[in-house]
């Protein structure tokens, strides 16, 4: 197995497992926000703004994995 193949497998694994955690937590965050809005529709503006910021924070983890995958594929320091 040469270094290119290992890099491709590494990129796939990074995106696969890196997407699981953020997907779960984004689902939980949205569910909680939905409950809160259903209970208090008048504060929907504040809740959805906080939700967006929180989702962006959670999403950052997945995007870090994407960056690692892209580095492995396109800017790999071990491939000449």
């Amino acid at each position, binding site marked *: 197995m040469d270094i290119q193949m290992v890099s491709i497998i590494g990129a796939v694994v990074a995106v696969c497992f890196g997407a699981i955690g953020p997907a779960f937590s984004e689902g939980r965050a949205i569910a909680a926000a939905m409950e809160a809005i259903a209970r208090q529709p008048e504060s929907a*503006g*504040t809740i959805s*703004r906080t939700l*967006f*910021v929180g989702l*962006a924070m959670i*999403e*950052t983890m997945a*995007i*870090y994995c*994407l*960056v690692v995958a*892209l580095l492995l594929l*396109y*800017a790999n320091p071990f491939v000449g």
Partner: protein
Amino acid sequence: MHINPLKTETLFYLGPVPITDAVVTTWVIMALLVLIAWLGLRKMTVDASPLQTALEVLVETFTGQIGEIMGKKSARFVPLIGTLFLFLVFANLSAVVPSAKAPTAHIETPAALAVIVFLSVHFFGVRSRGWHAYLSHYTRPNILLLPLNVLSEITRTFSLMIRLFGNMMSHEFVLAIVAFLAGLFVPIPFLALGVLIGLIQAYIFTVLAAVYIGAAVSNSAHE
């Protein structure tokens, strides 16, 4: 596909400086924004023209939204954050125009915007709280947390850049793959999704910038 998202194509050289297509698109967007503002505000009257009314509604919405995030003394941040949002909306949606590419899909433009936010956080923080008070908030709640506070300052700027770049670039990739698999009509819903993604990312970037600047400025009000 052999498209490297981390590299950019050089269109021409201005002296020794290479000019990429992202830079040209940015110049066009800047010229467009200035032109719209100049046209709308050339002859300001109480009995406003449609364009002037639209701009007024925009500015009022920005002022209201930023005031909700940053509190009372938010009026002086409206120019910076409003411009950031307008530029990001135009930049993210410029991919809709045929043969134009979103400049935010290359890493340089988000990096420059994140550096602007990073610098303005410290600038406004120091100006509103003074050097001593601003720098000492890094040692709060404990001096042991100083490295972590500094690290979080760097990583949040980095993630601001990577989030915008990653979202715009990955969507461009998805579009390229879909167009490669099925060229006719199938990419249209993905294009519509791209408009939504561009608007949401512009909103998130702006709100996060407002939250960061607000946090740097407003601690002084409570202490």
